[in-house]
């Protein structure tokens, strides 16, 4: 019995650190709607700075002062980031801020290694909380008890802050309806900055408090960021109490789960999240989001099919791309094939995100399923390449059909997180089912047949498929189905009012996007000759998101350009510099500031401005084209 009590307390202690970080994220999201990918980075910097300070300042007072000072220092960094970077992009399309914070995270991971060196750092134990307390023969670390007490205290302080201060009232009001708060004359700039500072402070405090029990190292951020997101979503976005309950729930399930299934930790949080979201689409303590007040058809430039000139230009570009094998070497061709495959992947997500308004955080699942589909068919059934390529993506299609059915019942960030949960479940199956998938050692030897083996032939194959897929999806955008899908994106209520079955349309779009991603995955398996659980992993899903956002969400061809730019740059930087993350992150941040609508979005805007400015005689002529839609 004593054991179960101690295990329960241990679970509570684990929950404490999770809660501190999660509460900060929840507050930031609730008010600013920023999906703050850099939250884990702030947590990590907090730990690093606290490490340095605790090593410098001696004594018990020095230790605790160092922890608090570290949190304040990082909060200050947060304020600078918010004022310099995020303030510029609040009006950018939804999720665009994710790109900025992703860029920051990349930079921080390289920076901490540059500043603090590559070794794992182990800090001091907390003065006064070094030992353990005996509980009927079981030891409970006193630091755990400290954390167990601390987290309800923090919860209480936050509650008071939100319920009893004017600032808290404003924050709660902004969480519910920030447009209304702005309309009532509240200075949003400083409200957002202060909220961001408080959120970052909590993250850094969470990181600093890890010093006595963890090692400080450069991958701490990734270790916590996804789980924290999950906790926030389970609890309900913007709800502090929800984050607390979710942190306790997840930690306790883990503490007791490992007694029965020792391998459960790897997937537990995602199972819980999927279950909670299917039953309660807004998390345990969340409330349904107020219907968006944005005007239908927010896009600055109404979409239109390419003009014949532009079609010609695209064709010329394609022909030029197709002549690459005439003058480029094998390496360039293989990189070309990889870029073409990522164009397929990016346009498939772009179709879901831009046309359907459904941002998936787990799109790699369908890419990876396509790849595994090919690997199973080729290695187990021994089918020829062409058959594998045709049938392999069906696995992606089936996965998308099953998961998409549940996912499209939700919207916004909840939709995104449910797709993430499904992707992680698929990933863990691939990772754990060693006898079938080979686990993390993957399936090797999936090489193309001789007709496609040479780099030039494979390049033409990938390029051809990429062109076909892009054309097909574009055609779909301007088909009646595409219009219906865009209608569900712009106004769900009106769509249903005119008799369109919105959920079915969205589901269909999800399946189309998943199958297309599966086609990309199938080609990828043959390009690499092997399939690994990585191909379904979070980082690949994030890559796809970054490509779409970089290209421009509110454009038709953003996915294509985003994929080409991001992938080419990524491969090139990794090959050229040891600090590829720092440079790539810096580049992304720069793009975010300079092109807040993405690359294509910005170019379109410039083009439109020029069109408006240059021919003064023909405004009437220009107008019909613009308003053709």
């Amino acid at each position, binding site marked *: 019995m004593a054991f179960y009590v101690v295990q329960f307390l241990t679970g509570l202690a684990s929950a404490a650190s999770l809660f501190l970080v999660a509460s900060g994220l929840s507050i930031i999201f609730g008010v600013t709607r920023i999906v703050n990918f850099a939250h884990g980075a702030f947590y990590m910097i907090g730990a690093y700075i606290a490490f340095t300070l605790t090593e410098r300042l001696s004594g018990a007072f020095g230790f605790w002062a160092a922890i608090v000072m570290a949190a304040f220092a990082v909060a200050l960094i947060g304020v600078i980031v918010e004022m310099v970077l995020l303030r510029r992009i609040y009006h950018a399309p939804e999720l665009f801020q994710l790109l900025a914070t992703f860029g920051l995270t990349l930079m921080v991971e390289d920076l901490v290694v540059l500043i603090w060196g590559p070794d794992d750092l182990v800090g001091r134990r907390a003065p006064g909380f070094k030992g353990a307390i005996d509980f009927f023969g079981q030891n409970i*670390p006193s630091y755990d008890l400290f954390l167990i007490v601390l987290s309800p205290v923090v919860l209480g302080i936050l509650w008071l802050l939100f319920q009893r201060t004017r600032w808290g009232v404003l924050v709660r009001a902004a969480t519910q309806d920030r447009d209304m708060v702005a309309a009532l004359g509240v200075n949003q700039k400083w409200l957002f900055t202060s909220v961001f500072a408080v959120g970052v402070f909590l993250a850094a405090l969470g990181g600093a408090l890890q010093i006595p029990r*963890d090692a400080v190292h450069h991958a701490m951020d990734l270790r916590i960021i996804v789980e924290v997101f999950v906790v926030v979503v389970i609890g309900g976005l913007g709800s502090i109490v929800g984050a607390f309950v979710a942190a306790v729930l997840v930690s306790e399930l883990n*503490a007791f789960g490992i007694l029965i299934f*020792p391998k459960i930790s790897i997937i537990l949080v995602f199972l819980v999240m999927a279950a909670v979201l299917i039953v309660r689409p807004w998390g345990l303590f969340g409330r349904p989001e107020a219907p968006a007040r944005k005007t239908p058809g927010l896009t600055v430039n109404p979409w239109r099919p390419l003009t014949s000139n532009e079609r010609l230009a695209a064709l010329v570009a394609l022909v030029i791309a197709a002549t690459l094998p005439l003058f480029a070497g*094998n390496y360039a061709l293989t990189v070309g094939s990889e870029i073409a495959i990522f164009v397929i992947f990016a346009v498939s997500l772009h179709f879901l995100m831009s046309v359907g308004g459904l941002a998936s955080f787990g799109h790699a699942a369908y890419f990876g399923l396509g790849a595994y589909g090919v690997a199973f068919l080729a290695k187990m059934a021994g089918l020829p390449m062409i058959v594998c390529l045709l049938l392999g993506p069906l696995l992606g299609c089936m996965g998308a059909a099953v998961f998409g059915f549940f996912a499209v019942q939700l919207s916004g960030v909840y939709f995104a997180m449910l797709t993430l949960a499904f992707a992680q479940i698929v990933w863990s199956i691939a990772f754990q089912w060693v006898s079938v998938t080979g*686990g993390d050692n993957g399936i090797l030897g999936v090489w193309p047949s001789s007709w496609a083996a040479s780099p030039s032939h494979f390049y033409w194959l990938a390029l051809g498929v990429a062109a076909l897929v892009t054309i097909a999806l574009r055609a779909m955008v301007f088909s009646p189905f595409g219009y219906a899908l865009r209608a569900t994106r712009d106004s769900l209520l009106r769509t249903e009012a005119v008799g369109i079955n919105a959920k079915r349309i969205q589901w269909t779009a999800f399946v189309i996007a998943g199958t297309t991603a599966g086609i990309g995955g199938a080609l990828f398996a043959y390009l690499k000759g092997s399939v690994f659980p990585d191909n379904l992993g979070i980082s690949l899903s994030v890559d796809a998101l970054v490509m779409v956002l970089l290209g421009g969400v509110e454009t038709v061809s953003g996915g294509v350009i985003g994929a*080409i730019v991001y992938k080419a740059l990524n491969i090139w930087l990794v*090959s050229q510099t040891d600090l590829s993350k720092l440079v790539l992150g810096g580049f992304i941040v720069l793009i975010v500031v300079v092109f807040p609508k993405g690359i*294509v979005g910005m170019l379109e805007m410039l083009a439109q401005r020029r069109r408006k400015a240059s021919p003064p005689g023909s405004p009437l002529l220009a107008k019909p084209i613009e308003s053709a839609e």
Partner: protein
Amino acid sequence: MRTRNYFVGAAFALLAGGITHSALAQEIKIGEINSYSLLPAFTEPYRKGWQLAVEEINAAGGINGKKLVVISKDDGGKPADAQTAANELVSSEGVAMLTGTFLSNIGLAVSDFANQKKVFFLAAEPLTDAVTWSKGNKYTFRLRPSNYMQAAMLVEAASKLPAKRWATIAPNYEYGQSAVAVFKKLMSEKRSDIQWVDEQWPPQGKIDAGPVVQAVAAANPEAILNVTFGADLVKLVREGNTRGLFKGREVVSFLTGEPEYLDPLKEETPEGWIVTGYPWYSIKTPEHDAFLKAYQAKYNDYPRLGSIVGYQTIKSAAAILAKAGSTDPEKLIAAAEGLSMPSPLGEITFRKIDHQSTLGAYVGKTALKDGKGVMVDSVYKKGSDYLPSDAEVEKLRPKD
């Protein structure tokens, strides 16, 4: 405007291709791939190690009079990126052979690439047995003692312990799984009275150490096998120390004696664990002294195990290239099979039968000295003594 877009894209694609270098006649290039950005704690000393080797080789006149050049690429910890890098090194840089890699799945991916493209590959670090056995191929050789070898070394010591009730803690991925599987198999062969009372599989890099320690303690084992390393090990040790998990229990632990993983523990280092590792401070052989002196002179830092691996990888590659007198992969394979050479840890041989080198490891006990973790009573175990019989290896390895 859109037109220009596409051109920009096409230009980028071309740019990424780079320019194909033609190898100069006076140079021999080796392509090296490792997870530099993902695992700097291991790969930084590793890089220093191979850079020292390159310097020494060229100072001694290069390889048959040709200058050795190592071109190094980061794989970011992703198998797919490792293959892109391998492809660049082979197709674009024209390297004579590939070396490196740390993670097992990346080692396997590059090994499969080498087999497909018929390129010589010397795997430095990946520990999985599959590299030389179940997924072995004729183009792939491996330097470090495999999972099986390290398990066999530890089992030799562990089977002498009186403990009968054993629990295991291992990261939940291939390395942890196969380390536990081999250890269990070899232990049970030697001792029929062993009971396996609990196993814990925390996710790699994400151990929730408190509950794990508590769960293991609840099973009340007499001895524990640990396979976690890096930050997970730190958390496990700290929780285990506070909760008294290791008190009165024997612990056998993979890799913990390597400075990369032992040094961060500082005064928390648990005493008396039986570990594999690299006690650079207590190795007193002329070969190692020479290496240590050169390393400390160049970097003003002590070597980690990664330094040895990096150094010996390039030294081995150079020896193979020198003996082959050619960069033809078939000739390199012929030269490498059965080739013996000196190393800082003593002579090693690349076995003909499975392309595994006989590099060994030190087995010893952890101890605390002046607030630092060290290995004591360490004995060098030759790799050749801890490999299964040739007949068994024949069965494990597919025919080329």
